[in-house]
């Protein structure tokens, strides 16, 4: 129990702390409010639930770095417990004779858990400090070719040290205070660890023990009062900004579905993000939520092959830019520093493969890929600054409806087939619309895949049709390359044609995961709602329904490369694997597969440009990984993966799943 003057003093300290806390949090809210769009805070109970799940479930932290993650669980859960502990400690200090849960059956276990948790937290934090400051874990640093805010390098160290020492202090002092209390109360069997420390004070007088408790109580809770207003300046804000990020994110049909721009709105003057405050609010929350763990960097194919891009450096740079301009940004001062001057370099901007690995792996729900693609929009739509090679593809989309500027017949691929592929005009009562895609129409390898898909549909007796020369590029390439206006135009034209063909009332199947994604996940925002399947999904369904019989055949070893836009972006990992196994092929998985699959190097419009300078080609890295499995064939499910990977080497034939399966029709 505190003395009356102490109580008054502590109450004043709380008020002062609350005052500063209010100001710093209001500043953070004001900065986030400078962003575009709004945070989604409707349906609050459900959203709070989502935040709580993220908090308690610790995001997806266990996916990578198991040891560190386990320590984090310990610290995080311990800290959650400490919210209760601190409140209980204050109550005990104010209310005479009050003990939280007191002599109820839960009192003892509560104290036991807190005793254990305290030590777990202390061990965890010591581990973190050793990892950063003694072992200098490489995962926590950035390669020198990555743009980093000048204040970041030292800033992260200082912040980490401060946070570490704060936790050590807060929990350590509380633990010591408890030990004095135990000594004072002659032991507590429920607190064996603090009890062990208490034995050290056995020689002290009762008053001395009480003074000890008073000192450590003040140190433990005083630190909290000092630290709370500091939160918005520290990456430790991830503690609540991470869960807040999960709960306030705009709803997305799939993790990488980009928001649309309404180009018919004449009042719009800004397209894409040029400066920080052009970014969506949720991506300013990202900056506050980032704990700078660099897990995204570890998953980023651009970073891993030596490019200038690091998604975490992007978030770190945003954060330090905010920190440096905190008051100005909060007060509404003009924001004129281009993101490309502090957040990431131009080469980094164009190195992104839009594979979505950074989003997938982030434990606090950040979406660095969205920032990158938003800055690309600004570069293309506002500044007209983009890699020159993309121009040909843009012109092709504009004039020819395909990125290669080919003016050929989109049905030429059907010529070698011994059955007719009907167009929608020939067969208006089709059940499944086969969306061939530009690659299927024009790329000689993808044409083989297109024939295989048609052959499988034909063999299973599926009533299907194609759009033929009415089909054109979905605009995916333009969208990932920042040319949102071109995407908008392509999408509008396609939605019209698809609706006229009644495709919205049927099912669409496509051989291209990029078409799958744009048609199925992104056209919705522009009014086109279609049910779209990847060919492996439909074929797998046909096999399952017994409409297609496959020969088991020899157990040839094969490895499968998950296309990013089939796997991570559309959540389909099983259909291609089931098909391969139904076709009698033995799957040797690559080290990075399914959710953790590594991009082929073609995503994010990289197929249409030269790779940014780095240490290695993404495609070569992936190809080598495929070779390492010892498989005889590299199976893919995307014509662009096929292109990138077959260009990367010669030892391993690259074949689409459809082709492999079509060769094994019983």
């Amino acid at each position, binding site marked *: 129990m505190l003395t009356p003057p102490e109580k008054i003093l502590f109450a004043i300290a709380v008020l002062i702390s609350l005052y500063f806390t209010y100001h710093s949090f209001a500043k953070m809210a004001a900065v986030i409010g400078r962003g575009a769009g709004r945070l989604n805070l409707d349906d609050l109970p459900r959203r709070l639930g989502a935040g709580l799940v993220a908090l308690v479930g610790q995001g997806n932290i266990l996916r990578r770095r198991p040891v560190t993650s386990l320590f984090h669980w310990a610290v995080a859960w311990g800290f959650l417990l400490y919210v209760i502990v601190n409140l209980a400690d204050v109550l005990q200090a104010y209310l005479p004779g009050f003990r939280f849960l007191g002599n109820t059956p839960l009192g003892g276990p509560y104290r036991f858990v807190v005793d254990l948790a305290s030590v777990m937290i202390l061990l965890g934090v010591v581990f973190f400090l050793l990892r950063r400051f003694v072992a200098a874990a490489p995962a926590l640093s950035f390669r020198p070719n990555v743009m980093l805010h000048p204040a970041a390098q030292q800033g992260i160290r200082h912040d980490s040290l401060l946070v570490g020492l704060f936790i050590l202090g807060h929990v350590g002092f509380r633990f010591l205070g408890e030990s004095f209390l135990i000594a004072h109360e002659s032991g507590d069997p429920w607190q064996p660890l603090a009890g062990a420390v208490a034995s050290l004070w056995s020689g002290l007088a009762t008053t001395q023990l009480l003074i000890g408790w008073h000192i450590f109580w003040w140190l433990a809770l005083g630190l909290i009062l000092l630290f709370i207003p500091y939160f918005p300046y520290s990456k430790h804000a991830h503690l609540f900004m991470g869960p807040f990020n999960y709960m306030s994110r705009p709803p997305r049909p799939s993790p990488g579905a980009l928001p649309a721009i309404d180009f018919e709105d004449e009042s719009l003057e800004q397209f894409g993000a040029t400066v920080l405050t052009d970014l969506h609010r949720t991506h300013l929350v990202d900056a506050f939520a980032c704990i700078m763990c660099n897990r995204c960097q570890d998953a980023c194919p651009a970073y891993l092959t030596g490019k200038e891009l690091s998604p975490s450096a992007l978030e770190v740079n945003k954060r330090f830019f905010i920190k440096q301009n905190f008051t100005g940004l909060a007060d509404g001062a003009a924001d004129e520093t281009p993101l490309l001057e502090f957040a990431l370099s131009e080469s980094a901007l164009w190195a992104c493969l839009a594979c979505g690995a950074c989003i997938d792996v982030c434990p606090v729900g950040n979406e660095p890929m969205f920032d990158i693609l938003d800055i690309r929009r600004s570069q293309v*739509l*506002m500044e*007209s600054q983009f890699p020159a090679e993309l121009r040909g593809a*843009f*012109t*092709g989309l504009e*004039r020819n409806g395909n990125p290669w500027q*080919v*003016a050929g017949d989109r049905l030429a691929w059907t010529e070698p087939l011994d059955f007719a592929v009907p167009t929608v005009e020939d067969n208006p009562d089709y059940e499944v619309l086969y969306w061939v895609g530009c690659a299927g129409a024009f790329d000689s390898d993808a044409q083989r895949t297109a024939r295989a898909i048609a052959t499988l549909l034909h063999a299973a007796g599926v009533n299907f049709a194609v759009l033929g020369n009415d089909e054109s590029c979905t605009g995916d390439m333009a969208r990932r390359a920042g040319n949102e*206006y071109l995407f908008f135009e392509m999408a509008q034209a396609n939605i019209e044609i698809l609706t006229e063909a009644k495709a919205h009332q049927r099912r669409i199947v496509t051989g291209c995961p990029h078409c799958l994604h744009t048609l199925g996940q992104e056209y919705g925002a522009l009014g086109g709602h279609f049910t779209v399947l990847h060919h492996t999904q439909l074929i797998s369904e046909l096999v399952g329904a017994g409409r297609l019989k496959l020969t088991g055949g020899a157990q040839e070893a094969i490895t499968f490369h998950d296309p990013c836009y089939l796997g991570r972006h559309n959540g389909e990992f099983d259909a291609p694997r089931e098909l391969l196994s139904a076709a009698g092929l033995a799957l040797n998985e690559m080290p990075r597969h399914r959710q953790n699959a590594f991009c082929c190097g073609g995503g994010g419009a990289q197929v249409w440009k030269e790779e940014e300078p780095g240490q290695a080609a993404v495609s070569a890295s992936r190809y080598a990984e495929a070779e390492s499995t010892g498989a005889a064939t590299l199976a893919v499910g995307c014509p662009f993966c096929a292109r990138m990977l077959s260009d990367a080497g010669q030892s391993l034939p690259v074949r689409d799943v459809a082709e492999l399966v079509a060769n094994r029709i019983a």
Partner: protein
Amino acid sequence: MNIITLVKQAPDTTQLSGSLDGLKLLAEGAPRVLNPWDEYALETALQLVEAHGGSVTALMVGPAAATETLRTALAMGANQAVLVDDPALAAADTLATARTLAAAIGKLAPFDLIIGGRAGIEGNTGATAIQTAALLNLPLVSYVAALKTVDPAARTLTAVRLLDNERQIVETPLPALLTVVKEINEPRFPTFMQLRKAKKATIPTWNLADIGLTAAEVAPQVSWLAELPPAGQARLELIEGSPAQAAAQLVERLSKQQII
């Protein structure tokens, strides 16, 4: 600097290949675009105006539908665009077009520089801009691959010309007329804001009377008799035999067709 760029509309020849030959392209009315070479002329003008101030006017002789193509020039950054359209110009040859351009330029005067592309991709005549300079008695610097110096105050510029076997450095007083080759720059891609602005811009259309010409003055001197499919363009001919035989046969065929 006030710069007039001479632009024209052309069929999109990227459409040419495989199943689509030139005749079909003409018949089917392929998409019409800004003549690719003229984009380099526009880019040259835009860069000069960015460096020295002034304005860029895109001037085109063409049918009313070509207005849409002129919008591309506006979207790239031209300050204004003018179309000259008259029924009497339907069969205009290079000289008739040059006379029309010269008269329209007279109406747009004063100017410091006129810039055109090396040629139009459709007819590939490459004479219209040159003849315009001759009619206006303007100093002509053709096939410009680079501008070395431009001095609006002294009213001179020096340019590097790309000739068949050499690069020639010349100096000319202003005003002058330049034609440029692709080597000179990389034309810009319009921003969306510029596209939106260009979409709404009004483009004045002048007829012959507006520029003080009569139909007789632009009567064509040459007429197109017929368009023939090019000879020897049959698709793939496989040449067989030993390497030496195949090589000899190929060389014979290529020489016969004046390719080598």
